């Protein structure tokens, strides 16, 4: 009789201990869940994926960029694609040197694609650097192509030459990358010889002909390309 009672007591004691533990644990989770649902009401503090907005994107920079990009048809809503020298000068509302200074923070995001004199053809080195620069988009929203020409020849001819250089870059990007966003992220500015010529300080930047001569003429027979990591 005593052994029977002991058996039952041991049975119930062990079983109750296990069951009570499990019930307490599960109840605890249920209470936490109720509390979380009440507190959060479905919203969670998790970062949401977005385009990059780097530290150099100051309010002033954004203001000028927005004006340039919108006026030159680079931002949705712009009425045309590409900016000519006079337009660029008027919308930027600044001197050529100040205009170039805008790009200084982008030094490691930019490259200078160099051309032969009186040519808008991309050579192998230019293609390699252009592809590498464009592929390194990261979270940037805009790709600026600012093409120029050296002062030889007439102003009108150089304006046209720089336009062809910008178009040449765009055409290559279209053919190589088939990016459906190209239309709204690549902006063209052709400046000819009239505005914001590059000075020798830009020789230190990434160039497609890094070992070649770097005078003003060589530097400005070029398309300056840069990703801009700013949300406008």
């Amino acid at each position, binding site marked *: 009789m005593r*052994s029977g009672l002991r*058996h039952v007591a041991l*049975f119930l004691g062990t079983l109750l201990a296990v069951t009570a533990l499990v019930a307490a*644990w599960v109840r605890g*989770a249920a209470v936490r869940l109720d509390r979380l649902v009440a507190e959060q009401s479905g919203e969670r503090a998790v970062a949401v*994926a977005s385009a990059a907005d780097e530290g150099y994107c100051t309010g002033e920079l954004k203001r000028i960029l927005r004006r340039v990009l919108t006026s030159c048809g680079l931002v949705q809503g712009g009425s045309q694609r590409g900016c000519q020298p006079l337009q660029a000068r008027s919308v930027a509302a600044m001197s050529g040197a100040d205009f170039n200074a805008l790009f200084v923070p982008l030094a490691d995001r930019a490259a200078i694609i160099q051309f032969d004199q009186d040519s808008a053809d991309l050579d192998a080195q230019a293609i390699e650097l252009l592809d590498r620069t464009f592929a390194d988009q*990261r979270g940037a929203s805009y790709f600026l192509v600012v093409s120029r020409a050296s002062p030889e020849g007439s102003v009108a001819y150089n304006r046209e030459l720089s336009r062809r250089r910008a178009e040449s870059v765009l055409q290559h990007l279209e053919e190589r990358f088939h*990016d459906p966003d190209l239309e709204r992220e690549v902006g063209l500015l052709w400046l000819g010889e009239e505005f914001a010529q590059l000075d020798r300080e830009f020789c230190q930047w990434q160039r497609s002909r890094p070992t070649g001569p770097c005078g003003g003429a060589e530097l400005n027979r070029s398309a300056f390309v840069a990703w801009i990591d700013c949300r406008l």
Partner: protein
Amino acid sequence: MLAQAGNHTCLPRREVAPVGSSQRTPLLVVAVAALAGAFFAGVLTFDFVAHLDRQVHAITCSVTPGLSAPDSSGSSGCHAALMSPYSSVARRWTWGGIPISLPALAVFAFLLFRSLDLLLAGAARPAQATAFLLAATLLPLFASIVYFLLSVLRLKTLCTLCTALYVASIACFAAALVAHRRAAAGGSLRPVAWGWHIVQFCEGVLFVAIPVLVYLLVKPAYPEQVAHCGGLLHPEDRYQVRLPLARQGGGVPTIEVLDPLCPACRALSLRLGASGLAQQLDREVVLFPLDATCNWMVSESLHPGSCTVSEAILAAGPQAETVLTWALDHQPELRTLGARSEKELSARIVKEFPQLAGALGSPAVKSRLNRSLRWVVANSLPVLTPQVFVGGRKVCDEDTDLGLEYVLTRLLHERSLAPSGVGGR
């Protein structure tokens, strides 16, 4: 009749088991091993149950819980085991399922009860009792063998607490075997009624059934939270970055946003495969590596090397699924290589897939990976992986681990009831 009854109650002395230390010691070992097994199974159950609140928790990954820091890395063997499809059963029927460690806890508690009862019974117990104890220890032993094989062959990792449980199972069985052999050698076999066996068996069943029943009765219900986590703003594949997995044809369009080196993504893949639900889905993958090398949305690399691995998957063309599966299977190695050197990682990938030589790091592949990230931006998704969209509806992030099968089953059921065209891409 009276004489017969007298014969049963007054057994000859040689038929009663002696209560020497030779019999007590193995029973004591069974009790201690069962207590240890119940403790480890209890810790595993506690960790599993903690996740019923649909949140992420650090888990115990040591045989000395409380003395060692809990594991919050998400990449340990213990985490892999907990999040694997083998950690619970009946997942389609109830959120998270019934943790397999819960019946394990009950079985070890039963073995503890039986061994203590036998120890206290002393001379009064028949040898059949040790035989029953021995039979009962076969259950955790068999389960341990199965789970060990699953760990090694499927999960390719071992969980510390589970290993402790295997050892406890073996110790219980070995000690019970010794106890029974000594009891049998002591000549304590005597006739027992069939009812005795049935009572013993029912006790064992109750030990498992009651805690499981209580678990199911107390656990939270989830209907209102399930499948109300939004959808995709721009599901269209204008960037051509969605990689089709094995198509079933006619299945529900499903998009998985994955990081190939994220442990939770591997666990998701395993769970989907084991659930049998993948056959009802037309699955596509969008790569979202949480590696700062290519992903500007993370300040530091959560899974170093995943950009390079993602490039390999995108460059593989029709073999993308093969590369993805390989990467998921080799995550620890690839993460280590990625943290050490991108070059070594690339070399390892090219060694496995020579056709990818030259493709890794090329502008075309980098640009495509960038488009994959931009697809995530276009849809304003949270910066985390994995994310699953079934028929355009998002499976809540909290339900992509233990609750996946339950929520998927419900979503598929709702979709089958919905008018044609509802919830499609």
